[in-house]
């Protein structure tokens, strides 16, 4: 088990490194560099040269990359190229928001959706199952901004509850205050992840239900509820955990639309701003964080799957 974790972490490290090179090259392919973007309309040959030298953009690409890498490994993320502010400061503020929103969404959304999905698998073809399947397919098809708009229309404009944007500091808030503060983004995101989770957990359980040992259990006369909860569910946990992990990673890295719609500052908005200003130092630091998040979450998912299903310890 330990060797497996070590091997996974090693592969993860290589992945992170490869991603950092790809991101670096990506920011260089885009037209214009940080100096041009920062000076905007007032760029002239002289002040461009001065600013490039100050930001280190006059050096060859490999030197720029290496100096970034060395600093990053030493824990120094450097200063933003677009505003000279320390990147650690920019990220710290937004990381908190992102963690709170994704954490709360996972806390509320995941248990509910998995439970709903498993219940649908208990009574396949029932009215409950049909309604749930129909709703979740509809929600999968609905983009976030549409769901968000509907929620704002209903709760804020129609019922007069809360605000259309999330503003103000979260300092010193308790759990319920945080939920209230981020109520609309969390609800939107819950809908987004719920649809996928419901369908996947239903499918995973039904898939296991078709296997011979379940048939045996049915023939023995064990009640269906018991079969699902005691025998089928454990075997279905692998795929379910994987879907949960993918959704968690999405919650941390990909909620740009929700962040912009509700106008709170999170990591996804920050990386877009970084790309717009060609701030490769900022983009790269964020890229590393996102990539590391993916690697760690997927690792945890795999370990969980293996623990739940011993057969997977011995891959064929």
């Amino acid at each position, binding site marked *: 088990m330990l060797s497996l974790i070590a091997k996974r972490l090693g592969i993860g490290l290589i992945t992170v490194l490869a991603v950092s090179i790809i991101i670096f090259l990506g920011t260089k392919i*885009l*037209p*214009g560099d940080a100096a*041009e*973007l*920062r000076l*905007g*309309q*007032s*760029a*002239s040959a002289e*002040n461009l040269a*001065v600013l490039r030298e100050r930001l280190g953009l006059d050096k060859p690409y490999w030197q720029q990359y290496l100096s970034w890498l060395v600093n990053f490994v030493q824990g120094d993320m450097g200063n*933003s190229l*677009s*505003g000279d*502010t320390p990147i650690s400061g*920019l990220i710290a*503020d*937004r990381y908190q928001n992102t963690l709170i929103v994704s954490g709360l969404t996972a806390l509320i959304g995941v248990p509910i959706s998995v439970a709903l999905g498993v219940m649908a698998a208990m009574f396949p073809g029932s009215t409950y199952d049909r309604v749930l399947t129909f709703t979740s397919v509809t929600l999968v098809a609905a983009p976030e901004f549409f769901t968000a708009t509907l929620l*704002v229309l209903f709760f*804020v*404009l129609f019922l007069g509850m809360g*605000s*259309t*944007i999330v*503003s*103000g*500091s979260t300092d010193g808030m308790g759990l319920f205050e945080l939920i209230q503060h981020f109520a609309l983004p969390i609800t939107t995101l819950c809908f987004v992840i719920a649809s996928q989770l419901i369908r996947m957990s239903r499918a995973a359980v039904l898939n296991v239900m078709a296997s011979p040992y379940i048939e045996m259990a049915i023939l023995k006369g064990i009640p269906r509820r018991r079969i699902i909860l005691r025998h089928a569910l454990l075997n279905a946990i692998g795929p379910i955990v994987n879907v949960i992990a993918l959704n968690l990673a999405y919650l941390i890295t990909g909620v740009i639309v929700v962040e*912009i*719609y*509700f*106008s709170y*500052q999170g990591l996804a908005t*920050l990386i877009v*701003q*970084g790309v*717009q*200003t060609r*701030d490769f130092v*900022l983009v790269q630091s964020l890229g590393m964080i996102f990539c590391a998040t993916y690697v760690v979450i997927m690792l945890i998912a795999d370990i969980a799957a293996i623990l739940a299903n011993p057969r997977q310890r011995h891959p064929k």
Partner: protein
Amino acid sequence: MTKYKLNEPDFESMSLEDRQKALGMVSKGATRRDVMSWMMGLGATAIASGSVFGSATAAWANTPKKGGRLVIADDQHGPADTLDPALYASSNDYFRGRMFFGSLTRLTNDLSYEPELAEEVISNADATEWTFKIRRGVEFHDGKTLTADDVIYSMNRHLGENTVSKAKSLVDMVSEWVKVNDYEVKAVLSSPNADLPIALGTFHFKIVQDGATDFSNPVGTGPYKVAEFTPGVRTIGVRNENYWTDGAYLDEIEHFGIGDSVARLNAFLNGDVDVMANLPPKAIAKVQAAAGKEVWSVKSGAYINLACRMDLAESNNRDMIMAMKHLMDRERIVKGVFKGEGSLGNDHPIGPAYFDHCPDIPQRELDPDKAAYHFKKSGIGSTTIPIVASEIGPGCVEQCLFLQREAKKIGMNIDVQKVTTDGWFSTVWMKAPISAQSWNMRPTANIMMSLAFKSDAAWNETFHQDPEFDKILVEVRGVTDPAKRKEMYCTLQEKIHNENGCVAPAHRNYVDANASYVKGLAHVPINNFGGSECAPTLWRDDA
């Protein structure tokens, strides 16, 4: 309205002291008779005295109340936000600058200036030396008294080869700042500039403390003190109890950006924010219809245009440019795109909001016959004319589409190539033969034309060369005779109107929106939020 003899006092023309006296009487419950007998004691007639009572009473109802908090939503913000006045790059920087700092002069709604941290502004006869007497007793937020050293330090940050100031071009005729004594400084100019005090009233020339280099939590003399500043997240200013003049009425101002215009509008309509920047034209009618919400529109000289490069063969055909000028349906752009919150452009940058606007140049209108004549003369036939456009400002793309439609009617082929705003200034602007632009207003006609129309200007986007134009433009800076000045400015505008590759169909107002209880709005036409000048005077009617 009754007109009075010119030398009769009315409320607006009374001295500040007398006005305050009248206001003081009204606020303490003085009757009409009290005010009239005081005024008539000063030698005014009964009619004039009565009118003063009315105005003073109205002014009393508009007397700012102290207290309350406002939430102000700008448009863009991000990691590049700064509190260093020399580096301000966006509207939201400008607004914060006015909250936390003061400047030597302050721009007024008609784009002249009034002294602010300078008590008195004196120039020599040919406008080559300007003396600023510094107001005594003004304190910075940390209690230090403002002196000449602070002013010299702040001004020197914009001078010299190595300055990083975004506004150095406005003061590059200043050769040095000299300290006369602790409360007097002098600017020595290498060439005359009658408009220097106006330039010094703009966004970047805020007075910081002598020696200040760290602007993460700066100390200024402004009406509000920095309580929180997180780039791209939020800024909170709390009242400076020690502000040297009237103003600083609110307990607190919270300021941040909401980039998405729909989210910004929703937040405003729902009351989550009290003031919003850049109301999208489509939403104007909606805000007008909403209870307790107002449109805050300031007529300005900001304009949209097509820039045809005069140095490239594919875009310097004068008849083709003239045809495009005659094909612009200006009325329709103002009505359709700006929903009436704008004014007709006349193919030059100096709109009616400028002090030096020339009203004598005939307005160019949609005229397909003239356009067809020039089109035929140009000999371009069915060759496609590409115009690159992007949503860098409202109306930028639409002006091209309207033009395209009108052009088609006379057989002229225009191809509108829409690109993203990302990287516009480094990849398209001043590179493509014809591109669609959006310009902000500048404080004076001379600054605007020096910036973008002088032959050697860094932003001369049409690359038009005209030595005679340059000569007049530089000469007029030292002209103090109003008639001469007007004539020279008219010549300049007429030259652009007829000869330049600038096709400017419309001026847009700066359109923001505010809740009705927000008072003390400014109307300086050089930016959103009344030229970003409103912070000191904002107050809440319901406080």
